[in-house]
């Protein structure tokens, strides 16, 4: 499911080492040992991080069977950008309704002291 995939993407990016790996792959493809070099961790640990990124669809392995350099799937970021844009549009729609409400309000700007609204008949 699409939402699961997006959750995996966000979970994968929640880790600072993985974000760093993504940032480096954004510059160009790199092998596991190249990626591991700057970190004080084992190749196995970096491989584990790469597995999470691969499972999220953020990173793929290139065809070069010998070195198997990893490649960043930039399309996933386009998808996230578009997804955030859709959420933004919904918020904008809501706020346009608020614009209309504000335009229709009188100029009495003093907040009224209100008794709580309890709609007893509604809940059941």
């Amino acid at each position, binding site marked *: *499911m*699409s*939402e*699961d*995939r*997006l*959750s995996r993407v*966000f*979970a994968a*990016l*929640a880790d*600072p080492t993985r*974000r760093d790996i993504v940032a480096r792959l954004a510059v160009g493809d790199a092998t596991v040992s190249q990626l591991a070099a700057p970190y004080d961790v084992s190749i196995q640990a970096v491989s584990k991080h790469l597995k999470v990124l691969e499972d999220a*669809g953020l990173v793929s392995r290139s065809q070069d069977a010998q070195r198997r350099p990893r490649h960043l799937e930039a*399309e996933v970021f*386009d*998808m996230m950008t*578009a*997804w*955030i844009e*859709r*959420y*933004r*549009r*919904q*918020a*904008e*729609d*809501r*706020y346009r*309704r*608020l*614009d*209309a*409400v*504000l*335009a229709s*309000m009188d*100029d009495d*700007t*003093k*907040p*009224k002291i*209100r008794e*709580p*609204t*309890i*709609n007893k008949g*509604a*809940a059941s």
Partner: protein
Amino acid sequence: MSTNATNEARTRETTIEADPSLPTIRIIRDFDAPREKVFRAWIEPELVAQWLGPKSTTMRIDQWDARTGGNYRYAALQDGEEIAAFYGSFHEVRPNERLVQTFTWEGMPDGVSLDTMTFEDLGDGRTRTIGLSVVDNFEARDAIMASGMEVGVYEGYEKLDALLAQS
């Protein structure tokens, strides 16, 4: 449409920031109304009901006590049917300045968002609202941002839908 109006619309468009390292969402929007008026539209139930609910739904307010320590519950209705309900507390109601609420969708009862709304006076009868929502994990944020995906389809999103369906 005049250039002036276009510029105005551009500066007012909603801005969203989803921090990649923290499970937060920040929503910023400017309004052509004084701060007191914007604040009222946020706390008076008759006004809130006119804009807050999801598109193409009616908002039914079951409980609304917009005072520090008060609480609220409301439901979204579609053709008279309840499709979602939300509740929370008013942690702080600081008139015209700040509104802090908790927010839970009853469909995900373990999830709670802490929403802080700040109202900034921009002068000239204009107001900027900055909403910051904090949840406790990325999955919860994703669920919030994905909510309403089934409601309101916009032109140009078919491509995104196709892309999402691939996985």
